[in-house]
């Protein structure tokens, strides 16, 4: 899973694309962790995730937790339709910033 | 004869219990929901009650509703006809509507108007076939909770 990282006006946007499964999980997490730890505002775009399994789901959960944390300004933008369906089937309720 | 009494009023509950304890073990609860729960537990444990006495006016769940639920539980377990537990409604209410509701919608076995006279209760129990001579002869007052 390639990560696309953009910085606009000091705000970082990372876009997850394609598959997010146990095969990509370790690499994706390695790339994401420093971003989560950095101080600036961060937007994670889940609109291009096409595939997701239990391992991928855990990463989404980590992102959700991070977005919930009050001390960081992390936003998750609208998940793709397949991801939305998977979240629902897996019983994960989450709120997202709708993509503008 | 194993009896369950549901009655929210302390005095009435005590009176009913004293009268019924002479014929066998007797449990008393204070509202309809507790009665339904107790009934189901006893049924599941394989030691069902022979008689359930329900007051009609009780907080939370009234006797009518408790009666319907008891019958529904029985129906679900495939208990029918004479296999159903005998239920006596005990109530200060004596309007025909509530009587008909208890009998017809609820499937009550009998309906006695309070205050409850011991002879009246006894003759009803005999009619329902709940008392046999041995039991009457024994009349052992039990103090089990």
């Amino acid at each position, binding site marked *: 899973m390639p990560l696309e990282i953009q910085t606009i006006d000091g705000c970082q946007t990372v876009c997850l694309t394609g598959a997010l499964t146990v095969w990509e999980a370790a690499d994706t997490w390695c790339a994401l962790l420093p971003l989560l730890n950095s101080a600036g505002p961060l937007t994670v775009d889940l609109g291009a995730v096409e595939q997701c399994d239990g*391992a991928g789901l855990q990463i989404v959960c980590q992102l959700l937790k991070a977005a919930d944390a009050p001390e960081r300004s992390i936003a998750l933008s609208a998940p793709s339709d397949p991801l939305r369906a998977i979240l629902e089937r897996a019983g*994960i309720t989450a709120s997202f910033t709708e993509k503008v | 004869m194993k009896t369950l009494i549901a009655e929210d009023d302390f005095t009435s509950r005590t009176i009913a219990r004293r009268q019924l304890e002479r014929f066998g073990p007797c449990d008393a609860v204070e509202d309809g929901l507790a009665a339904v729960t107790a009934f189901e537990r006893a049924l599941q444990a394989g030691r069902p009650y022979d008689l359930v006495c329900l007051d009609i006016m009780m907080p939370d769940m009234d006797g009518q509703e408790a009666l319907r639920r008891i019958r529904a539980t029985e129906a679900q377990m*495939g208990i029918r006809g004479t296999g159903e537990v005998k239920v006596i409604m005990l109530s200060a209410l004596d309007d025909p509507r509530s009587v008909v509701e208890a009998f*017809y919608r609820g499937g009550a076995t009998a309906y006695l108007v309070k205050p409850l006279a011991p002879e009246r209760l006894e003759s009803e129990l005999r009619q329902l076939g709940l008392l046999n001579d041995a039991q009457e002869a024994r009349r052992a007052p039990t103090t089990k909770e």
Partner: protein
Amino acid sequence: MDHQQAAYKVEAYELLSELETSLLELEQTPDNKDLVDRVFRAMHTIKGSGAMFGFDEIAAFTHDVETVFDRVRDGHIPVTTHLVNLALSARDQIKAMLDGTADADRGTGIIEGFRALPAPAADTAPAAAAPATADPEDRAAAAGDEQIFRICFAPHADLFASGTNPLALLDELAELGSCRVVAHTDRLPEPAAFDPEQCYLRWDVLLSTDQGLDAVKDVFIFAEDGCDLSIDLLAQGPAADDALPRLGEILVARGDVTPAMVEKVVQEQKRLGQLLVDAQAVRPEQVCAALAEQQFLEQTRRKCDPPAAAASVRVAAEKLDALVNLVGELVTVQARLSQKAVTDRDPELLAITEVVERLTAELRDHVLSVRMLPIETAFTKLRRLVRDLSGELGKSIELHTEGGETELDKTVIEQLNDPLVHILRNSIDHGIETPEQRRAAGKPPQGTIRIQAEHSGANVLIRIADDGAGIDPERIRAKAVAKGLLASDAEKSDKELLQMVFLPGFSTAGTVTSVSGRGVGMDVVKRSLEALRGGIEINSEKDRGTTITLKLPLTLAIIDGLLVQIGAEKFVLPLASVEACVELTRQDVADAHGRNILNIRDRLVPYIPLRERFAVAGAPPAIEQVVINQVDDHQVGIVVDRVIGEHQIVIKTMNTLYKDVQEISGATILGDGTVALILDVQQLIHGLDQAA
């Protein structure tokens, strides 16, 4: 005690009518244990409550009947037509006893009939006689029953390594039935400690399925070693009607909290979930999971449960009628208010009147709907009629009813009963042939009568169709000629001949039987329907059967009308029959050469100049208006000076002084307080036919 006895009678009559329905259904489905129970309960109720309210004779009489049904419900006595017959006559006897018109000998006879029923012999009491067993294991084993499972699925950290995707397992569960999945993220570590290749998530799944426990276990067959799994059966069967477990009970059952902890916080009387979280006894997501479980159980149960009898209040019919009258007056006053607001051009008043208008309309609809009853209530009586009459006449007849849920105004239903009974009697007596005749005609020996009710606009249509002999138009002709109702050489189509059965004093039956030839003919039926502002139509095909269609308005109290004006007089035409409005110029009149006929889209439509008909003084305007009405199959125009517009009108009946004025069906009070007469278009056109 007197008013109690009266109240008891009300309950008892209702009970008896339900008993009748149950018995008739039982005859159709003798194996239906629920019906047997219902019959038993009804008898038991009559006995038990009768004794309480001083109806000792009724109680004593019912006792024997109850005893028999007690044996029926235990499977000792089979349900037969004979038993149902006896029970029905017992029901009639109880009713007679309530009425105080009972014949004691008849009662004794019925009781003897019950006592003569086959006594329970050892060999006729098979398994059904055995005491009902309540073995939960039996139930659990029964396949096809809906069960609700709670599945707690906590994968071990190394689950992914074995190539198992927990989401795929969840999807497999979802295929077994309806399920509610709640994920728990409590084991997810801090980001720094998070190993994306380990599994931290765990799930609680509530599954409602009819596939049984084994099917659920099979889902986890390859993952068993890689997870902690517990599967509990929460509820059994669709009709589970026991109390929903409370949130606290669920949390305790799941081992999330101890009962003592629940007890402690409950005393503070706040929302339990919040309290437990506040007390740090559970984490919020545990409460969420438990809440989800509660909700799921509730939903599943609601899905399975037939709608429970709605809580209802009994209201005297007169109170309802009074309410309808009041609403009628309110509608009138509201119309006046609206008119005033328009003339005064007061914006504030206009705004208020708009609200009042809306509220009045809603109130009117609600009040009218309260008076609506399902027509099924009328059908029930017919079932008994068909059963008893066909037995008496040695015919075999099956009655099908459809659309019993169709609602009609209470008054309409009440007045519908007699016409329906009459039509049905005709069908049974003259329509349906004896089994021998039917066989000879190549028909199934059992005749069928079908009653269908359905909505059609502001009307309800009731169709009564039999597959009997039908009506022979030639016999009608012969009869009509013999009775001097028709000239012997009159040319009439079959359809016109059929209509003659509605003429006063007409009866086609070759022989007058005790059943239908009682001097009350179809003309009475027709008149009573017209009194309800309804209509009747007959269709018949020789040897194929007869269909009678009744058309009834939904309500009698309020109609939509078209307000028209002639000179200073205002009239209302029921909007239901209005098709169009066209202009009538002097030229049009001249073109028709004195015949009152108008050419509309190449169709010639006759019209009635109301001004002439009602002798309204003054001259008509240069351009008059023709309101085209569709009645039966004809279009007829009614000429008026001016069409004012649509109005909702409350019908007031007129006193007997006007009862001979057939063209007027009633009157209404308009917004400005003036009176408008409601025209009976059907009668107006009838007059036209006769004049033509």
